[in-house]
C-alpha cells in the first residue's frame, strides 16, 4: 500500500508546550492525496488524550471503518476530533481513556499491536459500550467529512465554483444507451 503503518510512524515525542502528546505520520507519495495536502508529513497535537489513547483511536477507526488505501492521516482526524471533545468535557476524556483500557484488555494486552482479526474480535466484544457508540458515531463525520476523504473517494464536494455539472459531465455516462428525448430531453433543445 506504500504507506507507513501507525505502529512505526507514531513515535512518542513527549510534552511539547501545552501539548500532551503528538501523533505523526507520512502520506505515501503514491497516494492521490499527496498532491492535495500541503506537505506529505502530518502531525497531530493531542491536548487531553494520551499518545496511547490517540494511537488506539486511530487503530480502532481503522478496524471499524477499514479502507485499504485510505491514509492514516484521515484516521488521525478521528483522534483529533475526540481529543477536542475530551478537552471540553472531563467525562468524555474519562470515557475515552477507559475505552483504551477496555480495548487493550479485550485484545489481550495491546489493541494497537494486535492482529487485524484480534482487533475485530476486541471491537465486537465491546460493541454495546458507550465508548464504542461514541467512537463509531464520531467516525462518520471525522472520516468522511473532510477534503482528504473527498479526494480519496472521488467526491468533489461543492460544484458551485465550477458552475455545476451542466458543462462538466452530469450526463457523460456512456456504458448504457441514452434514454429517448421523450424521457430525457437534450440540453440545448430547451
Amino acid at each position: 500500500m506504500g504507506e507507513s503503518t501507525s505502529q512505526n510512524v507514531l513515535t512518542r515525542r513527549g510534552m511539547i508546550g501545552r501539548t500532551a502528546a503528538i501523533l505523526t505520520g507520512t502520506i505515501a507519495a503514491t497516494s492521490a492525496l499527496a498532491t492535495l495536502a500541503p506537505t506529505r508529513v502530518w502531525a497531530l497535537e493531542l491536548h487531553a488524550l494520551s499518545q496511547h489513547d490517540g494511537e488506539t483511536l486511530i487503530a480502532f477507526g481503522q478496524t471499524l471503518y477499514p479502507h485499504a488505501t485510505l491514509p492514516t492521516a484521515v484516521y488521525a482526524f478521528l483522534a483529533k476530533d475526540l481529543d477536542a471533545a475530551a478537552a471540553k468535557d472531563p467525562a468524555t476524556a474519562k470515557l475515552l481513556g477507559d475505552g483504551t483500557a477496555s480495548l487493550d484488555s479485550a485484545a489481550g494486552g495491546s489493541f494497537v499491536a494486535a492482529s487485524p482479526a484480534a482487533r475485530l474480535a476486541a471491537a465486537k466484544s465491546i460493541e454495546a459500550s458507550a465508548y464504542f457508540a461514541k467512537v463509531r458515531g464520531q467516525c462518520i463525520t471525522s472520516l468522511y467529512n473532510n477534503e482528504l476523504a473527498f479526494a480519496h473517494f472521488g467526491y468533489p464536494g461543492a460544484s458551485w465554483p465550477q458552475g455545476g455539472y451542466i458543462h462538466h459531465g452530469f450526463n457523460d455516462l456512456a456504458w448504457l444507451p441514452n434514454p429517448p428525448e421523450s424521457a430525457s430531453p437534450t440540453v440545448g433543445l430547451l
Partner: protein
Amino acid sequence: MAAISHDDSSAVVIIGSGAGGGTLANELCQKGIKVVLLEAGARQSTASFVQDEWASFNQLAWLDNRTTSGTWRVAKDFPNLPAWTCKTVGGTTTHWAGASLRIHDYEFRAASTYGKIDGANLMDWPIGLAELAPYYERAEQKMGVTRTGPNPGLPGNNNFKVLYNGAKKLGYTKCSTGHMAINSKFRDHRSSCLQMGFCFQGCKSGAKWSTLYTEIPHAEATGHLDLRPESHVLKIEHNAAGKATAVVYVDAKGKTVRQRARVIAVAANSIETPRLLLNSASNMFPDGLANSSGQVGRNYMRHLTASVYATFDEPVHMFRGTTMAGIIQDEVEHKPHRGFAGGYEMETISLGLPFMAAFLNPGAWGSDFTSVLDEYTHMAGMWIVGEDMPRESNRVTLNHDVKDQYGMPVPNVHYDDHPNDLAMRAHAFKQGGDVYRAVGAKKVIETPPYPSTHNLGTSRMSNDPKLGVVNKHGRTHDVPNLFISDGSQFTTSAAENPTLTIVTLAIRQADYIASAMSKQLV
C-alpha cells in the same frame, strides 16, 4: 414591506413560511390582504446557501430537541431527529428536491378504494381530484413544474440513465425525468438548472422553486407582508367566544410578544403544527386548541420511504446533477395482488459522501459497509416514496418531561410501521433492486428509512367534525378563524411527494379566506 403593529387585529397571521405558509401569504397579499408571516428560522439566500452537507444541515434543518418512541428504526438510529425538515425562511422548500406530482383520484378515496384495513385509520378526503384540478394547474404554473404547460422536461443525469435503462429492461413504461419544480429554462427571473447536485442544500442558482425567493419576495413587493424571521410561536390565544385572537411568540431579540390577529393560519409542518395546538390548551379547549375530535397529532404519516443503492463495474457519478433526476411510476396504482394497498414511486436520489456515510445504513460498521463506500463513484441510487397507512396510535404528543429552549414541552413522535407498510417496502426493495440488477449491479444495498421530509396528517381533513380537525378548506372545525395550511391537513398520505398538493391547498385556501373575510364571516 408592511409594518403591522402588535395590536393591529385586522391582519392574517401565518405561522411558518414554507410551501403552505409562504404560498398562502403571497396569495393573500396579492389580493390586498395584510399578512404577518412568522418564521422560527433565520433568512438565508441563494448566496448564503452552502454546498457542504453537514454545514448546510446546521444552517437549514430544524434541530430543536424532539423525542421518539415506537418500533420504527428511526427511533433507534436518530432518537432526537424524527424528521428532516427546515427552520428557515422558506421552510422545507429550501431543502426539498422539487418532485411535483398530483395525488391520484383513487388516493383521495383511500378508504373506498382499499376497503377496511385492520389497524389503519383510513378515510376518504372530503375533496377529490376534480375539485382540486384547477388549483393544481395554478400551483404547477406558479412553480414552473416541468412537463406542464409550456415548461419542458429536464435533461436526465447519469443516475437517471441507470434508472431508465433498468426500468426499461424490467418492462416498466412510465419512466422519465418527471415533473419537477425546477426551471428547465429561464423563468420567473430565475435561471435554468445548472445540474449542481445540491438540491437538498438550498439551490444556489434559484432554479428550484422555494418560497424563499419566489412567493415571499412577490408578497413583499405588494407592500402587504410583514415577514418576521426568528420568531418562534409558543401558543395561540382565543377569546370567550372561542375565536382565535392572538399568537404569542419569542422574537429575534428573545422578547416575548403578543401579535393580535383576525385570522390565524398554522403551517409549521406536521410535527410543530399539532404541538402548537396542543401547547395552546385552555380551560375552554382542555385537550388542545381545535381538538374536540381528539385527532390533533394523530394519524402521523411519513411516507413509506426507503432507498436502494447499487454498485456497478463502470462509473456513474450519481452526485452530478439534480438529486431527483427521474422517476418510475409503474408501481403507483392500487394493485392488491402485490400483497398491499396503495402504491409507490421510485425516484433517483443521491447523497454526497458525508451523508452517504451517515444514512446508507445507520449504525453499521465493518468491511461490508466500507466496501460499498469504496465504490462511491460507481453507485446509483433511488428513493422509494409510498403511501403509508394512517394510524391513530402513530402520533405527535407533548413530552412534558423534556422542555425546549423556551420552556415548552417538546414533541414526541411515535410511529409503528403498519403491516401494509412493511409489505410494500419489501416489494419496493425487490423491484428497486431488480431495476439495478437488470443493468448489471454488482451489489444492491437496501437502505432503511431515515428522518423523513414528508410529514403528514396530524390535523387531518374530514367532513365530520368528530373524525378530523379541519374541513375541506383547512378551517378547523372548532375555531372558525383558525386554519391549518400545511401537510398536516392530509387525510391520507397518498404516494406522491406532498409539496405540490400543499401549495395547491394553500392557493385554494387563500381564495376561501379572502371570500370569508369579505363576507365578514371571519
